[in-house]
């Protein structure tokens, strides 16, 4: 009988830090692996254990051709199958789901790592994501591309400095309750507004800090999930979408790709009205302005209504980023995986001091590329 559903059976996170100089990422992944095994007791047995690992890392950030090669041992991949989803952690969960639904595996280990602090500058890496002829030459990177989007969106949605400061203040309040978060110090709105401009209108405290981290999950088919957990979290739907490459070809505030991805994910999950059926949201807010923008894209408020969403308590209604979000600091390529980890922990009732009550269904979101060229949406349910 073909399996119909895939469960997240366990989640393990390495604490995010701005400069984990004392640890190789191999050691960070090993901590995560051991914690997953401790939670579930899974093995790598050829008959009954994990035979497929889906990893997420990136050659540029690791400064290694074939970044998964350097971690194959600590992923448990010795004489096992391993596939690396490059640079997009949430896609690793989506792909792992497909591997199980295909029948090729009934258990998949998902493991992501990245140390942004290893490189001289993450912005230099992002710059190399642009075409070598035009985008790089004009000095584009994720920050200044985001600033173009921020300016356009603030105008469209009536988003003010105070709104942005409010997002950061709230982020830190939740991050303080998340032992895995990076930036956990409480800040006042005045400090946010007084923080220096990185790229107008994005201020230093509007941007996520340089972060190192590692995160893992065990996924299982419906038939096997009970062997590893009594609190499975089910993948109800996953989809992603690519937007145009050139910034000038896009309406930066239209959320084209996110709306497509969310629409497809909702359809798979049988969600007709996300505003009524979603209880918790983790969005990948690399910059403060992105939190309401992606909320619009997920259809939790109307186009251009992001500021009103904030004013009317939308963040609490939909439990937006109780982990502290990406603003509290996750490495960019696995920030989506951290979003999914938090959503799963919340649904399992294991989110500690930041636990929200009465959860049935949650959304984890991730984005890659300049000003959100690519978006992934994962729907989880209890």
């Amino acid at each position: 009988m073909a399996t119909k559903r895939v469960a997240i059976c366990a989640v393990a996170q390495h604490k995010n830090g701005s400069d984990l100089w004392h640890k190789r990422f191999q050691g960070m992944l090993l901590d995560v692996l051991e914690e997953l095994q401790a939670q579930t007791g899974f093995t790598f047995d050829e008959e009954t254990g994990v035979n497929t690992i889906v990893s997420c890392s990136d050659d540029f950030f690791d400064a290694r051709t074939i970044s998964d090669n350097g971690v194959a041992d600590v992923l448990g991949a010795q004489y096992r199958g391993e596939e690396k989803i490059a640079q997009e952690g949430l896609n690793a969960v989506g792909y792992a789901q497909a591997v199980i639904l295909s029948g090729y595996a009934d258990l998949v280990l998902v493991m992501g790592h990245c140390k942004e602090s290893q490189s001289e500058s993450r912005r230099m890496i992002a710059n190399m994501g642009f075409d070598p002829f035009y985008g790089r030459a004009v000095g584009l990177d994720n920050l200044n591309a985001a600033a173009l989007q921020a300016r356009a969106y603030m105008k469209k949605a009536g988003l003010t400095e105070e709104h942005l400061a409010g997002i950061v203040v709230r982020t830190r309040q939740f991050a303080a309750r998340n032992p895995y978060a990076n930036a956990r110090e409480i800040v006042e709105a005045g400090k946010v507004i007084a923080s220096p401009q990185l790229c107008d209108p994005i201020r230093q405290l509007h941007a996520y800090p340089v972060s190192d981290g590692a995160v893992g999950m065990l996924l299982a088919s419906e038939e096997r999930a009970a062997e590893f957990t009594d609190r499975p979290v089910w993948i109800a739907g996953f989809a992603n979408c690519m937007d145009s490459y050139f910034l000038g070809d896009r309406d930066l505030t239209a959320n084209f790709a996110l709306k497509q991805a969310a629409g497809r994910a909702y359809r798979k999950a049988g969600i007709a009205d996300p505003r009524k059926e979603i209880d918790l949201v983790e969005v990948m807010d690399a910059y403060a302005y992105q939190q309401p923008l992606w909320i619009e894209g997920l259809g939790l408020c109307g186009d251009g209504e992001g500021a009103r969403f904030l004013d009317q308590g939308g963040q609490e209604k939909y439990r937006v980023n109780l982990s502290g979000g990406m603003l509290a600091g996750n490495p960019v390529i696995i920030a989506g995986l951290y979003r999914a980890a938090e959503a799963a922990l919340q649904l399992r009732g294991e989110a500690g001091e930041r636990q929200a009550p009465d959860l049935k269904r949650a959304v984890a979101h991730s984005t890659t590329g300049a000003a959100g060229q690519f978006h992934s949406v994962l729907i989880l349910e209890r």
Partner: protein
Amino acid sequence: MTEYFGTTVADIFATMPKRFKPEEAKEVDIAIGYEATGEGGGKWKATIKHGTLKVETVDGDLTGCKTTIHTDAETFVGVTLGKIGALDALSSQKLRVAGDPKFLMLLLPKIFTPYAAPEKKPVSVTARDIITTIAERFRPEKAEGVAMTIGYDLTGEGGGRWTIVIRDGKCAVRGGLADPLTVKMTMEAKTYAGMMLGTIEAVTAFTSGQVKIEGDMAAAGATAKFFRKYVVPGATEAEELISLRVTNAIEQRFATGPVMGHWFAGLREKKFLANRCPKCGRTQIPPREICAWCRVRVHEFVEVGPKGVVTHFDIVYFASPDPLTGAVRDTPYATAYVVFDGSTEREAVTMDLKKEDIPRLKEGARVRPVWAEVTTGSSRDLIGVALDEQEESL
């Protein structure tokens, strides 16, 4: 002589004196031998001494040459013209260098300007050749609803008088000038041919009075779009291909972590510290956090070596650049797989072998480490290994 890429090997040597830069070769004292095999090949010797150059053909052996280059004639021409990558040719062994290839690759571009193939004579095309193909090049989709007759009075060699009739999506060329004409253009036949071939700019020809227009000026300007561009039979259209050359570098600071850190601390003390799997007993060099086979964390360190046995080796003739420094090392050099005394039998380690020892290197040879004068706790502390004379003499 056989041509490759439109050039012969002899062409390249014949132009060598012209391309020589004596001021760059003042310090140079070298004789380079060239052997190009196959059709159009031969042997040459270039002697460069204190700013002078002598190029000669050689019949017998290439004697007295410090460096010799061996290749087939086609590869030689291809590499010279940049049609074949020098590194590709070297790595595929189509081009072999006896001596120091790195030295040559640095020296030659310095003391010679690059060889440029002589310009080919343009294929001679007359105005008649071009105008008589005009009906074939007609684009009816661009001339919808157009009805006009265009007269050409082309003077001089290859000229004549023609009328082009465009009507009902069709185009015909007739000899002589019809009456009436929508527009009549008078010019020298060579001006018309030049404009069509792109060697004369049309706007300049019109504004400078080389083209005389009678009748509807606008119609004269519009005609170009009704026809596809004329292409000389057998010619390939040259395009300007621009490559962007960039060196990308992002500085890194790699963490060693406690396990790898222990290994480097050992190197500083001139010790090989492997770590031993608690389950299978495997000794790992360099030590890693986990034993991949047993999937257990490894804590125990044991000292192995310092001597060991060569299990396999290779000798490198084509060295790749060191990605950390960009330096290309001297060749040949040997890479030996060494199992250190006290290591488990699978755990070979890659080691550079002292160059002078290469001739005596064999599988099963005993080796000892060669340490840097100052050890600081990095992989550079260990220069490599050398054959262990003490044990050799036993």
